[in-house]
């Protein structure tokens, strides 16, 4: 397993800071929440040479975190950065700036770029680009199949050597079950988990909105929940058969939650993630034909939202993400059925979840919320991140859990503004983001600039 340790200890792809003199830090008076180590108390955090250290360093910069929560850097394992190929929507530079503003120190980018991430050279290109331009760590997910075409396996082993952290054909779910089985078996050899966008094309073809009362009212082709659930069930069967983790992306339906819960009871390594839009909005919002409510899978019903919330509260769904999918305004300002799927979300997701799950619904604690953004994603993808253990990279997020603020899309750092969260007010906000001990975003900076 030499390749695995190499991957784990390889330098992450993050902006080039070798030239900067490494500063030491003392983060004092903050409420430290580090789920990986069970820490939940006021204590100092020390940083030296870009790592967390246990002893107070000499000549350190002092950060007063009084009234703030000090958390391990947040991780979003489902992000579209659009480079290479679609830099009019987003770039690695702009996308990771938005990530930093959302409190993220690490993101996992999806392989549906142009060209797609289906070979080691594209992985290297992204890593190199990230090294030069990114504000936060960028980890790559590689494709399952060549060109995400669902026909032939991509060179998963070579991509593993280059440092991909998972494989997925996100957006282009592999329809051939036999091929999917081989992909899982093959990826297992490299310890690479599978991320799957669960969508059965024969049930979903042409669907642009949740199938139900609103698809019928609006006269638009429906995307039925069973189109997701059938593949969730497929993945459960294959995960059991291959004894290898499969992570179901952006769960949207009650039936999916139930199936994952039942499979987990049988110790099958299946997991699921949730995006904010799937619990903030129902398909009724599509009635205005606003393409900022067009996502894949689609936003669904109250019943589905209730089930997803239950899945988060009982631990069935233990990863939160954005599925940040930027599109230029000219691409979204078209007929609903002709618009691309997807919305941006890096800058709003943490606040949205904090507001809904911690404050309003009181479904989980802030500590648990932080675990869903650090411990579990790091564990799933074997990332050496998401903890404040001594020796770990000094990726740190400072949070004001009670700060009320209103998001305005004009102020977004993303190049695209296709968000349904415009003008929404949330309780809880990240105020400072540090990667490797360096501040990559701060609220004050942003507000006074």
């Amino acid at each position, binding site marked *: 397993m030499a390749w695995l340790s190499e991957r784990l200890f390889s330098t992450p792809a993050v902006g080039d800071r070798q030239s900067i003199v490494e500063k030491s830090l003392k983060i004092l008076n903050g409420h430290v929440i580090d789920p990986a180590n069970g820490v939940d108390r006021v204590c100092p955090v020390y940083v030296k040479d870009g790592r967390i250290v246990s002893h107070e360093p000499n000549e350190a910069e002092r950060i007063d975190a009084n009234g703030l929560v000090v958390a391990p850097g947040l991780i979003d394992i489902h992000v579209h950065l659009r480079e290479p190929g679609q830099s009019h929507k987003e770039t690695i530079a702009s996308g990771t700036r938005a990530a930093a503003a959302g409190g993220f120190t690490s993101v996992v980018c999806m392989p549906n770029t142009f060209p797609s991430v289906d070979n080691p050279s594209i992985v290297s290109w992204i890593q190199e680009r990230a090294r030069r331009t990114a504000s936060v760590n960028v980890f790559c997910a590689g494709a399952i199949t060549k060109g995400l075409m669902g026909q032939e396996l991509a060179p998963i082993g070579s991509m593993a050597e280059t440092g991909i952290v998972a494989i997925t054909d996100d957006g282009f779910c592999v329809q051939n079950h036999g091929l999917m089985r081989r992909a899982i078996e093959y990826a297992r050899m490299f310890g690479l988990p599978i991320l799957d966008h669960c969508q059965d094309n024969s049930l979903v073809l*042409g669907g642009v909105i949740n199938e139900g*009362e609103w698809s*019928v*009212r609006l*006269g638009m082709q429906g995307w039925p929940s069973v189109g997701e659930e059938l593949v969730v069930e497929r993945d459960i069967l294959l995960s059991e058969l291959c004894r290898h983790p499969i992570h179901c992306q952006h769960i949207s339906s009650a039936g999916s939650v139930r199936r994952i819960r039942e499979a987990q009871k049988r110790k099958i390594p299946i997991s699921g993630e949730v995006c904010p839009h799937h619990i903030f909005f129902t398909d009724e919002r599509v009635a*205005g034909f606003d393409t900022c409510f067009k996502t894949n899978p689609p936003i669904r019903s109250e019943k589905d939202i209730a089930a997803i919330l239950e899945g988060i509260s009982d631990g069935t769904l233990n990863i939160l993400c954005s599925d940040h999918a930027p599109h230029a305004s000219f691409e979204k*300002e078209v*007929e609903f*059925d002709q618009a691309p799927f997807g919305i941006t979300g890096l800058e709003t997701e943490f606040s949205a979840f904090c507001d809904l799950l911690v404050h309003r619904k009181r479904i989980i604690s802030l500590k648990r919320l932080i675990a869903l953004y650090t411990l579990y994603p790091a564990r799933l993808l074997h990332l050496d991140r998401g903890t404040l253990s001594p020796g770990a990279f000094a990726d740190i997020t400072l949070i004001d859990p009670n700060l009320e603020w209103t998001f305005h899309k004009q102020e977004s750092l993303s190049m695209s503004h296709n968000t349904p969260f415009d003008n929404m007010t949330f309780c809880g906000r990240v105020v400072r983001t540090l990667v490797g001990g360096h501040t990559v975003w701060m609220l004050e900076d942003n507000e006074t600039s």
Partner: protein
Amino acid sequence: MNVWKHKDLISLSGLSAEELWFLLEAAKAFKGLRGDRVNSVPTLQGKALVNFFVEPSTRTRISFELAALRLGANVINVSATMSSLQKGETLKDTALSLEALHADIIVLRHGSAGAAQLLAKYLRSSVINAGDGAHEHPTQGLLDGFTIWEKHGRLEDLRVAIVGDILFSRVARSNIHLLVKLGAKVTLVGPSTLVPREFEAMGVRITHRMEDILETTDVLNLLRIQYERQCREYFPSVKEYISLFGLTKQRAARLKSSCLVMHPGPVKRGIEVDSEVADGAKSVILEQVANGLAVRTAVLYACGGGSAEYRGKKSEDP
């Protein structure tokens, strides 16, 4: 004209019963005017109406054109092939350029649900939806409602059956919104694949058997089977469809003598309805076409009647 406050007509779903009745009454007034006297209502004198038909439909386009001419408007017909849509220009850009040419009213036929609403959002011109995908076709809904009202003298408590491809039908949706709001009792009839139970949320009943409604219905509105919308299999064959849902002579004989047979056209004789029934005494298919003119005149009068400049200023105000 206090009732009508909209610059556009996008859908019937959002209109109140009062607004629907306003349009129906206006249509009645226009139908009563003889051709030569209509020119004494030059509401749209000096205004330009653009018939923008991205999806072709000669009948509806001509109906709007005649209505506009009766109100004194200038009419420009634009098709998808003439516009820059084919060259990759977006609908929004095309519409903005039409408005730059001082179009006061744009009548849009488009294959995508919500297209008319999209235009209305960006334009100060009035936008009239002449059919957007499978969403709505408000003037068809109005003319069907008008025809029923004219023939039966009321809509309240009438039993109306809409038969056929409901799922893909914008005509059905606009009909349902109007009829339910004005008190008729609507039953949808068709194969379960084309009449999903979710329609019940719109206040209608559903049956998959023609026999359930024949003797009791006051109106039988037969929809066109839209093969072009059905990229997948919704029923096994035309033959089987006719045997289950076609208005054959035998079935027509069981209808009440007062029952109206309607069809939005164009009629595919021998499929949705037998030829003799289409031409029979109960059929009001040709009157629907005539009423289309009255209804569209009423709609253009309502939406374009006020001062466009005034409405433009209003929407520009911060």
